[in-house]
């Protein structure tokens, strides 16, 4: 029998706020231990939480980006458990009335467009970090109280590859939306993986096995590459898998059991009495809605449709947000978007990378590239000449029209002038002329090159070819 995996992901992401969730301490990575702390985030006696409005905004913004509905009322709850890294020994989270619910995310995976539904994205607080020394342990509470978004997917992912594509797409969206920097190195993204297996085609779900606290996507892939075959092998041996929580051993490359369902925590959730329920007003929601940005995949598809760009160009302009934005601004109303895209992707990006400038620091005005394309398309300059004009424009900020005029680079298309040059070249190269007449076509290119040289690159190459052929055949 063939088996398939059913995977759901719970992704925890640190929100990009200036301050922590309940206090004014900086939300900052890398500060010396316990330097970004205060009575509130240390859980001192008598303190009360005050919700960070920016965190609430980013949560709702995430919901909008993930096509979620935004309930008119959300509330916070206490999740009770003891652990030394927890300042209050309860975590404030959103249990049964989260800020966002029931959305979806579209992403590309294995060359196909996939959709995975989002159960909810809710707001909670991060905990401190345990540090172990030779003789004792310590806790760094800098991270305690940092706003954390938990994004829960439906169990609709069916492979390790798809899980990683989902995670990449999700973090792309969050970075693009300004929700989180999603810096894995700094622990800004962590993930719990729920995975079960079932006979292919079956609709029933197998025993849910949760792998806790993955902090790299490659770890997620490796853990699934280990766990899915393990479960299938167990089922094939006739074992019944039971619900449990497992831990990923990154060095050993295996998962191992942490606790069974019977040992599961009873978190004793109840509504947080120190915080009022959150009921966003229409004007507040409108403000958040105004911050919604276009998602990467949507932009790619729009570029392909609206500008008839090939997928590779659309992707390049999506991967580099600034390039995409620049392209969008300069392409408006132009009849050759594909050519403009080429200039941005193949020439401009390279020069910027080489010079270390950003799009905002460009010397030349935004009409520069469209004007350059217009000059080529109108036959005023050759594409070769255009390269030279581009470099000068990039260096000096002068518009192409001005450069061409000032330097007299205008292409010569006048057949009379070109014919004089062609006659000169044929006379000077009788051997090549004979070769052509004898049927060796390559000789024409040589002659063409000589004419171009003579014209200092200004002759229209198309016209040169026509004239040469006429003279040689005539």
């Amino acid at each position, binding site marked *: 029998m063939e088996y398939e995996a059913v995977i759901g992901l719970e992704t925890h992401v640190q929100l990009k706020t200036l301050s922590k969730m309940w206090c004014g301490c900086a939300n900052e990575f890398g500060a010396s231990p316990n330097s970004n702390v205060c*009575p509130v985030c*240390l*859980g*001192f*006696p*008598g*303190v*009360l*939480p*005050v*919700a960070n409005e920016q965190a609430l905004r980013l949560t709702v913004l995430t919901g909008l980006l993930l096509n979620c509905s935004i309930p008119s009322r959300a509330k916070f709850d*206490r999740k*009770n458990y*003891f*652990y*030394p890294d927890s*300042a*209050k*020994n*309860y975590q404030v989270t959103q249990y049964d009335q989260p800020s966002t619910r029931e959305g979806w995310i579209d992403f590309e995976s294995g060359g196909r467009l996939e959709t995975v539904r989002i159960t909810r994205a809710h707001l909670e607080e991060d905990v401190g970090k345990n540090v172990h020394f030779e003789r004792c*342990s310590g*806790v760094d*509470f800098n991270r305690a109280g940092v706003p954390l978004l938990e994004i829960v997917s439906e169990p609709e992912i069916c492979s390790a590859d798809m899980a990683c594509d989902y995670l990449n797409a999700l973090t792309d969206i969050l970075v693009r939306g300004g929700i989180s920097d999603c810096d894995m190195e700094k622990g800004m993204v962590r993930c719990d993986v729920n995975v079960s297996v079932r006979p292919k085609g079956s609709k029933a779900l197998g025993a849910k096995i949760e792998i806790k606290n993955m902090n790299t996507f490659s770890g997620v892939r490796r853990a699934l590459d280990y766990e899915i075959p393990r479960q299938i092998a167990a089922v094939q041996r006739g074992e019944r898998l039971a619900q449990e929580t497992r831990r990923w051993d990154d060095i050993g490359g295996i998962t191992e059991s942490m606790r069974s369902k019977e040992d599961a925590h*009873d978190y*004793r*959730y*109840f509504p947080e*009495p*120190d*915080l*009022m329920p959150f009921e966003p007003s229409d004007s507040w929601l409108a403000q958040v809605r105004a911050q919604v940005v276009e998602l990467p995949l949507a932009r790619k598809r729009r570029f392909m449709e609206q500008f008839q760009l090939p997928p590779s160009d659309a992707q390049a302009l999506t991967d580099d947000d600034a390039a995409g934005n620049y392209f969008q601004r300069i392409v408006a109303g132009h009849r050759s978007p594909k050519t403009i895209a080429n200039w941005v992707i193949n020439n401009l990006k390279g020069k910027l990378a080489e010079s270390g400038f950003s799009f905002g620091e460009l010397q030349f005005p935004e009409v520069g590239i469209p004007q350059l394309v217009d000059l080529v398309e109108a036959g005023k300059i050759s594409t070769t000449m255009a390269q030279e004009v581009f470099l000068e424009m990039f260096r000096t900020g002068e518009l192409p029209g001005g450069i061409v005029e000032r330097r007299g680079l205008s292409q010569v298309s006048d057949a009379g002038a070109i014919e004089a040059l062609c006659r000169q070249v044929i006379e000077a190269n009788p051997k090549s002329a004979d070769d052509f007449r004898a049927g060796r076509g390559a000789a024409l290119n040589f002659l063409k090159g000589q004419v171009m040289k003579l014209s200092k690159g200004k002759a229209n190459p198309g016209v040169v070819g026509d004239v040469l052929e006429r003279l040689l055949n005539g």
Partner: protein
Amino acid sequence: MIHRLRLAELIDKLSRRECSAREAMAACLLQMDRVDSQVHAFLSVDRDNAMAQADAADRALASGVTHREKPLLGVPIALKDVLCHQGQPLNCSSKILGTFRSPYDATVVAKLKEAGATVFGRLNMDEFAMGSSTENSAFFTTLNPWDTSRIPGGSSGGCAASVAANECFASLGSDTGGSIRQPAALCGCVGMKPTYGRVSRYGLVAFASSLDQIGPFTKDVRDGAILLQAISGYDRRDSTSMREPVPEYTASLTGNLRGLKIGLAKEFMVGGLDPEVDAAVKRAVRHLESLGAEIVEVSLPHSDYAVATYYIIATAEASANLARFDGIRYGARVEGSDPFQLNSRTRGSGFGAEVKRRIILGTYVLSSGYYDAYYLRAQKVRTLIRQDFLKAFESVDAIVSPTTPTAAFKVGEKSGDPLQMYLSDIFTISCNLAGNCGISLPCGFTSSPKLPIGLQVLGKPFGEETMLRIAHAYEQSTPWHREVAPLG
């Protein structure tokens, strides 16, 4: 005899420069030296700090600062050991906090300082405000200034005893189920629980967050109004504090009750009431009528469930609120082989029996499988109780009742029977569940021994003005508030 002055009288004297803040503070400390060995109201006092604040107040007075600008300038006010005072010990009458000192001021403390008060002392209480007698203090039991073989009530027993014994001009306590009103009644002073959200809870060590409210203990109603004025108002540090404007409370003390309707809840006229308490409260009701109030019977049909509801919600919240006392970041610690053992050993030795009982109860009612039957159901009943009050308040301006079923009981009399102890709060608990305001003031004495009896006036949510008006009119036309405890 400065220490016997009422707060308003002291303010008059200070502003006329007839006494100094230093003299006022010294008078309190001297009285403490005289009587606290009998009353045991204070856990500790930082005398130097208190005198330094008093001197600062005198300097301000000398430089021309008036009581119009700083209404409590130079007035000594003491704190229950559950309110954070920067640099001062904070124990909540528990061993678990060890040598902890608060690194910050509670909002009410900051407001008192802002108003110029001399904030001093740590007043004894039941551990973490759990109890009705101060017998649950980990340190010692405070005794009733009217009869030192009796308890002062609780949990804010030290607050009530210190005011009744004239060791301070006023004190601030906290009321979760009657912890201000009950000891005020038993010690013969005025104790007020403001409407939930009226006073910021920031810096009040939480027992039950949705029920706790800070309030004043004073020698009379006007003093209570003055202090309420100073501590009320929205605080951005407390999300449950309300943006309701703060009226001029003393302006409501007109002495006139004409046109007011006062309710008597038939459910509060229950058996088990001490006959002398019953008689005193009935006399008080007739007196209110003689002052022009109309007495109307009202019904609070779900009152019977108040105590049970309270002990589910309060313990549930407490079980989470007290989880932070784990010996890891602050307070006493008993080492263990791992953090879990350290935690359980620290809590096992740091908490007293009643606190443990309530944490266990609260943990139980929130447990998976029991949540719906206990916590969720209690929340529903709480809503019904709140609706009872709102409905009653449609037809009356306030409700009166006894504050407690009996006068002060003997030390040890109920300490072996938690349930009996819980029942001493039956008249005060509903007010916390409903969130409205309440005040207790003296309405007579038992004959032998002579012990104070408290009258409770319950006001509408944010109805402190009318509540104070009724309490003040009654007080000023009766002799009880002028009685002084034999010790004092």
